[in-house]
């Protein structure tokens, strides 16, 4: 553990040191020539914030312990969408059921990590930074991917978050991804005359610096944002999708992502969140509402990708910071738990359906599921086998990789 903590220290000081390394100011306006044509892989991450109840997502329909633990919340077998003799999907997830039938859905059960933390913000940090439970890392796994991808690049758009603020997951040591809610809004905000003027004047006056100072970092971030805003806006309009998406926030976000994919933007990772799944009280209605939104949005997105022959190139996965307890609580809800399932959607899956066994409800730890697969193995698999990146460098260690892609 001491060693791991030192790794963290190294990361922290690296980030600071980078400030003072001489580096060309990166403000050349790019023409947006870098693209990602068909055949290149794209990753879409859907974060289910708040801790989705995995046991009421993929329901163990033959398990007495499940029904005993959840007298009110347990979903009866005939209500679920049948996957196998033992497993059924939540009734709102009709699109996921179709994808399952087509061989475009993989379900990985019991994903988690050793020494699980039941605090939302801590567990989310662990998932987003890919640190061990005992470590605190200040960078995210996709941020470190971006560091690798965008070493001397001036357009840090290889990873984008569709939101107002940037998650830890997308903050690297040297690079931080761009977060945007709407390409037009970002474009408008960054297209004020004075910003462009400031940026250009600064570049003109300071191109031969011996030492990079904090003010240079600020201008670099600004120039990077302005360039990216132009690029993203241009790409979002170049081949705007014609598919009809639901008017929900997630619907709009997936539509933005689809348009960028179709116009072959150079972005390889898209990050988007939906919540809140923190269903301590009255879980049934809340989870069903959220699943309905997700189901509608994912229906449109997958159809869009199929129609445009990009489905083979797209992998969408879902995760949540933790699952919930096996037993329901006194308010017809569930409290914070541990291991959970993940969905993988795409036309390029090598393995489909249930990728491993349903969670073992007989062997619990303090009333919670034991994890079988470390989420960092999933990251390693996706980084190496989908994005062709150096998973060991990004994760700081070698994790066993899976074979579903």
């Amino acid at each position, binding site marked *: 553990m001491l060693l791991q903590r030192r790794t963290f220290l190294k990361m*922290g000081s690296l980030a600071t040191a980078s400030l003072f390394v001489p580096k060309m100011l990166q403000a050349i306006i790019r023409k947006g020539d870098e693209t990602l044509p068909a055949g290149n892989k794209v990753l879409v991450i859907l974060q289910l914030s*708040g801790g989705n109840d995995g046991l009421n997502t993929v329901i163990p329909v033959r398990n007495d312990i499940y029904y005993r633990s959840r007298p009110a919340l347990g979903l009866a077998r005939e209500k679920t969408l049948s996957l196998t003799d033992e497993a059924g999907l939540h009734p709102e997830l009709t699109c996921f059921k179709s994808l399952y039938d087509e061989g475009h859905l993989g379900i990985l059960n019991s994903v988690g990590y050793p020494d699980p933390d039941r605090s939302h*913000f801590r567990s989310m940090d662990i998932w987003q930074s890919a640190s061990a439970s005992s470590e605190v890392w200040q960078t995210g796994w996709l941020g470190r991917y971006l560091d690798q991808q965008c070493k001397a690049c001036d357009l840090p758009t290889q990873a984008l978050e569709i939101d107002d603020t940037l998650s830890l997951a997308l903050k690297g040591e040297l690079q931080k991804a761009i977060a945007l809610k709407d390409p037009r809004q970002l474009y408008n905000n960054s297209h004020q005359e004075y910003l462009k003027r400031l940026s250009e004047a600064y570049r003109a006056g300071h191109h031969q610096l011996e030492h990079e100072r904090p*003010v240079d970092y600020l201008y670099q971030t*600004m120039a990077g944002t302005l360039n990216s805003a132009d690029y993203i806006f241009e790409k979002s309009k170049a081949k705007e999708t014609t598919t009809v998406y639901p008017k929900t926030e997630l619907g709009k976000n997936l539509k933005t992502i689809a348009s960028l994919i179709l116009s072959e933007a150079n972005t390889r990772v898209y990050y988007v969140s939906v919540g809140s799944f923190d269903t*301590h009280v009255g879980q049934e209605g809340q989870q069903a509402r959220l699943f309905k939104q997700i189901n509608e949005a994912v229906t449109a997105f997958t159809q869009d990708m199929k129609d445009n022959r990009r489905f083979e190139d797209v992998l969408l996965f879902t995760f949540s910071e933790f699952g919930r307890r096996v037993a329901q609580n006194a308010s017809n809800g569930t409290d914070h738990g541990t291991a959970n399932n993940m969905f993988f959607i795409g036309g390029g899956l090598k393995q489909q359906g249930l990728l491993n066994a349903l969670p073992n409800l007989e062997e619990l730890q303090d009333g919670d599921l034991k994890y079988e697969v470390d989420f960092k193995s999933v990251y390693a698999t996706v980084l190496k086998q989908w994005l062709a990146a150096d998973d060991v460098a990004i994760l700081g260690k070698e994790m066993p990789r899976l074979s579903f892609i």
Partner: protein
Amino acid sequence: MAVNNQTRNQHLLGRAGFGIAASTLQRLDDITPHKLYKRLEKASATPTKALDTVSPFVKEAMAGKEMDDSNNAMMDTDARKAARAEQRKQINKQSNADIRQLSIAWMNEMVSSEAQLREKMALFWHGHFASRVNNSLYQQQLLRVIRENALGSFGDLLRGVSKSASMLAFLNNQQNRKKKPNENFAREVMELFTLGRGHYSEKDIKEAARAFTGWGFERDGTFVFREKVHDEGMKTILGSGGNFDGDAVLDLILQQKQTALFLCTKIYRYFVNEVVDTQQVGWLADRFYSSQYDIGKLMHDIFTSDWFYEERNIGTHIKSPVEYLAGIRRFLPMTLRNEEVQVLLQRLLGQWLFNPPNVAGWPGGTAWIDSSSLMLRLRIPGLIRGDETISIKPKGNDDVQMGGKELLPAGGGKTKKAGGSYQMLAHIDWTVLDKALDETNREVLYNKLEALLLQTPPGSADKDAVMKLVDQTTDETYLQTLVIALMSTPEYQLC
């Protein structure tokens, strides 16, 4: 280029406080930085009044037993359990609101208090002793310890923090018992509070954890030593042997000179420069150690040194979101009808007081700035003046029990506009600034304001670009829009 007196004074006020105030602008060019620092010290000499925003409900609930069910002999176990859960929920909910008020009250002190140095030090220690528990009583108690001891002896501060309910709860020391030690508390005390990584062994942690067994707190936050779960046995910690208790461990840690070096390095990076001059830090650490950790003396050493005022240190600190927001309010006296917007901005910009991201506190420096946070910072001054709306949302912490979704109250339907956007509802009192500047020549005024607001060399922010935001119609619009424009530059993010 020689640094002039005014810039040096502004440098001092930006680092040792929250920047220059509109009402004191005239005095900045003739006074020497040393004299100015003396005034800062004097204004911070005695502890300021403790803040109290804990609601009567929480106070009462935390004063008694968890759930006084003596009158409810009829209740069965399940009903009692449910009643207790309900009470906890209510405490959480109310605490959440109380902590927001505490955050606002404290920010008001940072803006208006004469004790700028004390509040600035308190903000530093708030990040150093990072704790995130959703109990307003405990958080308020911890803040009180920090503000009272911010400039006193580090030993007292460390002891006060280590014995606070907030920290003991956050670092799980209630679960640290003789039969089943929990090392979290001991580890963070050594790693984050005092020695730093690499200056203790895993064995030291294990042994120190044994010494801290029995440290806990009562429901009302009072520290308690539970002898029954304390491990009385012999321990070897940092090379010394004995049947140490928690206090003895803190003494052992303070005897290590490394503790002085660790703290001085962190303080230097925070107050002087991210790039550490090991000679200067070594000198500070020697004196800090010999003064028995007198924080006030340490800060005096820093702020009266010649090197603090060297050009390489000026205008190189990226203001934290709280420094940034308090600084705007100091320069532009304003009334905020919707004070809670400040909490929203803390969250959006990444420094949500009382909610540090993890045990290590806020990383600071360039970590404050990404494309979203920078673009928002460049818009905030305009939002304040224009009474425009903010329609962006912070990441939810998605914890219903934490009440994350209730960040902002409806405010009588006035502060929250349809579509989820929020108004600043700020009223800036421009007369104070107008009077202080007393200047109508626009060229001169530009130079004056640039020097007051930006600590970078003149001309760093392109004048033609800045002027694009300036409305030259009248003297009044010129002054107002120029202030806002200069605040909307990358340079203004620095001090």
